[in-house]
Every structure is written in structure tokens, then in C-alpha cells.
């Protein structure tokens, strides 16, 4: 398999090293609430220094998994090892793990300073040390001068940073972040993403973050796990998961994908050739078929990897080429999204970067168009 090469500088990618010792091991963990299985036999290894993202929709079990790591929920079965120690029976107040809550959970009756110092006070540290460490944290999150403020006197972004400082000040082995940017507006969110990553790299603390925002997970995480109905749909680096989704669910959850159905045909120069069962066309990929000839598979093609042009008169669908009619054009500013209706009734999406002005767009509503792509864009889904 071709490897994505958008690794962060200096990151060792320990998950590729069979010798490396995982820092957090989640082993066959299951958690039920009544009749519903929130987390279903999940096993996952996370390495020291990672910024790992658990990505999923609501009810996917990502938050439950995080709360089990924090100690607020007990697994019904399975084990959780942190730095080699089984933490299943360790209550939250004795775990070397801290959490940044989605609502921040800042104590409303304490100042910024008191909030950050809280954890250190609970450990009974000497007053001078508490003062120094709180000051260092305030420095790190750029909140000098806000020591005496109460949470309600802060902006959303400032509260977020207090919450971060409070959870970091104890120098936990593992920091859990529950939707850390969820309460911020879009501009602030982007800026904070970079700040959070740089703080993480600076301190070298292992972060596990829960998010429903795929963009957040993609831009920040060293690796991510896509969760669905309590199980792990796929684990990998953001680029791996995006470029090589293993299932229809992952392909459609992460970004946009046009998914087709077909049967594997052996013939073809290299890689796999799939015959569509929906219309008279073939999909050619540059990877080897994951299943034997004749097997039914799904094929995913991302909108941005397709080209769109006006169809020539009498032009027919072929290999990695479909013919249809433009039914809708959505203008996003930085790109256009075309909705193309195929003769068989199915609609696909094709995007095109906004290189020219809107008025100069050569394709418009009800145009008959051809949509084409290269073999590398054809992803045959193994599941």
C-alpha cells in the first residue's frame, strides 16, 4: 500500500515500528448502558507523544471511550493499560490522567488562578510551587493578567484556555480532550487548532481528543480512529484514512465520496477492474483487487479527484468516465460543487476549484457533461 507522506516533521511514527511499546492500551473494551452497547469490543494502541483523535457522530461511543479512560465509567469487560499499569480500578482522582471537558466545567466560584491551582492543591503541593506552576501555565496559554477574573468574566476563547491550563498543570501522563474546540466560533477554532498542536508538541504530553468535526481531526491528529455504533471503523493517519477508506461508512463520513457498486473483473492491465452493476461503465483502480473475481464490492471516488467537462455529441460512459446532466451548482467561494444526474437516475458530486470567475464558468445548469478520473482515484472498498 502506498503510504501517505504528510507526516509532521520529526514525528517518528511509532505505530509503524513493531518494536515500539504502546503507551495506552485499550484491550477488548466493551461498555453497555442497559440494552445499548456504547463501546463494542474496542482494542486500540496509542503511543507516547501522539495527538490521537476519536472521530465519530453522536452515539458512536467516542465519548464513552474517553470517559472510561478518565475513570468516570468502568468497562464491563476488557482492560485499559496506561504506561503498563491496569487502571480499570483506579478512581478518577487517582489517575495520572486529566480531562478538558466539553463545557470546560470551570468552577464558577473560583478565579482563573484558583481554577488552575485546584488540582495542585488536591495533591497537597507546597504553596510556592503551586504559585510558580500556575504562573507558568498562565504564561503558556497567554492569560497573564487574568488571574483574578471569574469564569463568567471571560470570553469563550479565554475560558477554553483556562480549561486547558487547568488540565495541563498537573502534567498528566495523558490528556483527554472532549470536543476541545466545539464551543468556539469558526475563526477562533482554526487559530486554536494550531495553538493546541504547538502546546502539545512543546510539552510532549500524549493527547486523546474526541471530536465530531472531521476537519479538526484531520488537521490536528497524528492518527485518528473513526468510530461507528461503538466499534472502530478504521484507524490510521488522517491521510491514510482519507485516501484509503476501508469501508463505505468511512468513505462517506470523512469528506464526500461518490460510492458505486460493482463486480470485480480480473481483466485489465494492472490493479483492479470493476464492472458497474448500476450502469454501463467500468472502474479502473491502480491497486490490486481486495477480493477474488466476481465478488461484489463498493467503489468510492472523491469529488475533488474528478474532472468535469462538456460532453461531446454522442459521447458514452466508459472506463472511469460517466456521462450525465448538471442538475445543480453550489458555489462555495473557494470551489464549486456540481450535482450531476446520471441517466439511470443516480446523482454524483464533482467539485472544481474556483480558478476563474463565476461568470466565466463554462458549464452551466442542464449541460450534458462528462466526468472522468484517473485510476488512482478509484478506491475499491474492501468491506
Amino acid at each position: 500500500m502506498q503510504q501517505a507522506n504528510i507526516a509532521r516533521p520529526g514525528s517518528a511514527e511509532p505505530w509503524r515500528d513493531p518494536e515500539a511499546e504502546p503507551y495506552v492500551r485499550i484491550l477488548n473494551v466493551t461498555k453497555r448502558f442497559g440494552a445499548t452497547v456504547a463501546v463494542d469490543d474496542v482494542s486500540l494502541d496509542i503511543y507516547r507523544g501522539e495527538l490521537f483523535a476519536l472521530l465519530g457522530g453522536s452515539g458512536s461511543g467516542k465519548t464513552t471511550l474517553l470517559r472510561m479512560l478518565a475513570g468516570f465509567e468502568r468497562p464491563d469487560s476488557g482492560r485499559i493499560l496506561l504506561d503498563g499499569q491496569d487502571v480499570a480500578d483506579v478512581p478518577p482522582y487517582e489517575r495520572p490522567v486529566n480531562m478538558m471537558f466539553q463545557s470546560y466545567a470551570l468552577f464558577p466560584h473560583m478565579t482563573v488562578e484558583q481554577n488552575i491551582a485546584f488540582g495542585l492543591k488536591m495533591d497537597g503541593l507546597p504553596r510556592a510551587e503551586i504559585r510558580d506552576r500556575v504562573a507558568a501555565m498562565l504564561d503558556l496559554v497567554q492569560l497573564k493578567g487574568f488571574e483574578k477574573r471569574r469564569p463568567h468574566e471571560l470570553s469563550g476563547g479565554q475560558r477554553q484556555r483556562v480549561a486547558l491550563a487547568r488540565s495541563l498543570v498537573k502534567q498528566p501522563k495523558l490528556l483527554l480532550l472532549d470536543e476541545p474546540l466545539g464551543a468556539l466560533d469558526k475563526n477562533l477554532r482554526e487559530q486554536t487548532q494550531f495553538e493546541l498542536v504547538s502546546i502539545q508538541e512543546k510539552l510532549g504530553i500524549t493527547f486523546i481528543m474526541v471530536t465530531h468535526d472531521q476537519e479538526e481531526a484531520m488537521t490536528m491528529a497524528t492518527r485518528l480512529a473513526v468510530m461507528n455504533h461503538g466499534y472502530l471503523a478504521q484507524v490510521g493517519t488522517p491521510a491514510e484514512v482519507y485516501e484509503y477508506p476501508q469501508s463505505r461508512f468511512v468513505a462517506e463520513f470523512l469528506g464526500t465520496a461518490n460510492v458505486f457498486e460493482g463486480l470485480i473483473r480480473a481483466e485489465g492491465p494492472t490493479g483492479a477492474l470493476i464492472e458497474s452493476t448500476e450502469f454501463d461503465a467500468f472502474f479502473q483502480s491502480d491497486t490490486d483487487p481486495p477480493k477474488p473475481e466476481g465478488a461484489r464490492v463498493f467503489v468510492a471516488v472523491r469529488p475533488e479527484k474528478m474532472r468535469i467537462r462538456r460532453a461531446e455529441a454522442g459521447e458514452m460512459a466508459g472506463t472511469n468516465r460517466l456521462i450525465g446532466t448538471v442538475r445543480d451548482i453550489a458555489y462555495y467561494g473557494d470551489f464549486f460543487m456540481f450535482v450531476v444526474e446520471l441517466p439511470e437516475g443516480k446523482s454524483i458530486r464533482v467539485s472544481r476549484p474556483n480558478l476563474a470567475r463565476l461568470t466565466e464558468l463554462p458549464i452551466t445548469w442542464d449541460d450534458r457533461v462528462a466526468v472522468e478520473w484517473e485510476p488512482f482515484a478509484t478506491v475499491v472498498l474492501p468491506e
Partner: protein
Amino acid sequence: MRLRLPSGRTLVLALPFLWLGLFFLAPFLIVAKIALSEGALGIPPYAPLLRWTDEGVLTIVLNLGNLATLVSDSFYIEAYLRSLRVAAISGVLCLLIGYPMAYAIARAPEHRRNLLLMLVVLPFWTSFLLRVMAWIGLLADNGVVNNLLLGLGLVSQPVALLYTDFALYAGIVYCYLPFMVLPLYATLSKLDPVLLEAAADLGARPWRAFLTVTLPLSLPGIIAGFMLVFIPAVGEFVIPELLGGPGAQLIGRVLWTEFFQNRDWPMASALAVVLLLLLVLPIAWFQHVQGKGAR
């Protein structure tokens, strides 16, 4: 010219304003006036403040004697102090019983809370006097508790329970407990459980999390509940009269006696004025806390 009708807003405001002004505020001024007048035989049994002298000159006769008696006679001073002490101790007792109850209700499963709360309030909807009567039945020399003690052979003759301070406190705590539980429940149920998780996550054991997070955040409820017990209990008449001993001369009882038995209206008024002065600060504090809670 068009006649302008008063707006709806003015009417809505005027009705309660005038009613309360006439029947709540004005009476206090009258009480203050009568507290300063002399007692007299007749109906009403007090002399007017303003009167015409024989020479036809309008004079104001202020009688500070009642107030002077209050501050010099140790009987009255002790009654005030005893009232404040009894009310304060009752408030603390209610807090000690009511806080765990309110906490337990706030932590109960959501669908049960209404019922549990209803069960706390239900006795309050039944007759106050008859509930006090129940304590007479429990604590009398031939009452249930003494019967039980005698039956078990723990005592050989009835223990004096009724007409003691024990009966007094039992009665006050019993009758005022809902007023403590309700505001406590209101603040405790608003407390975000995530804050306790955050405290645990930062290393606070349950007991410390309670002391550092729950307790300070429920302080408004504690103050409101305490005031709702303390302020009315200071002037309580029925419970000391029916359950307390002859020594339980609380100020409400003294005032009642002055008014109904001695028919000394100016003295009763003076007692009321001083009682009100004693309670102004707690009442203002209570309203301050309430106002903050409403915001």
C-alpha cells in the same frame, strides 16, 4: 381633546402597589406611632399622639416609656435573646437534617425527584396546628414515646418531654423543614454534575469535591433556607405556646400576652417595632440573596 386612559402597564402596577402600600406598608407606620403613645383605658386602648391641649394648641405627646421599658427590663431583653437563639439553633438543625435530604433528592433519578420533593412538601399543605398537635400526642407524659419507653422497661416513670426545649425544637424543626429543603434543592439540582467530575479528575476525593465545589456553590440555597427558617421562627407564637415550657417566653408569645391578656397595645407595638428592627438586616440579606438567585 382625546382623553388618555392610563396604560395597562400602570394599572398592573397600581393594583399591587396600592394594595400592599395600604395593607402592608402603612400598618407599620401605625405600629410605630402607637408604640410611641401612652396606654389608656378604653377602645382603642391607647392615647392619640396628637392632641389639643386645653389652651387649644396642637401638641405631640411622645411616649418613649415603652421603648425604655423594653431596653431596661431584663424580661424583655431575655425574651429577645432567647428568640434569636432558638431561631438560630432551629435554623442550624433544619440545615443539618435538610441538607442531606435535599442533596439526596437532587441526586435521585430524575423521574423520582418530583415525587420525593412532593413528599417533603405534603405535610406543609396539611394543617400546621394539627401537626403541632401530633407532637403533643408523641411527647406527652401519657404519649407514644413515653408509652414505648415504659413498655420497653427503659424508664420506670414517664420522662418529661412535652413543655421542654426538646419539644420546642422538635416542633419548630418539624414545621419549618420544608422551607429549608426547597431552596437547598433548587440550588443543588442546578449544580452541573460535570463540575464534580472535573474536581475528581483533578484529584479531589468525593468528600473534598463536596467541600470545595458543592458546598460553596450551594451557599445561596443555604442562606435562603436558613433565613426562611430563622426569620419567622424568631416571632413564632404557636409552637412555644403549645409545646414549649413556661420558660419558653419567646418574643412572639410575649407580644401575644401583652396584646390579648394585658391589652397593652402600645407595649405590644413597641415589642413589634423592636422585633422588626432586629429582623431588618436578616430580611434585607435574604432579599439580596434572592435577588441574586433570580438573576
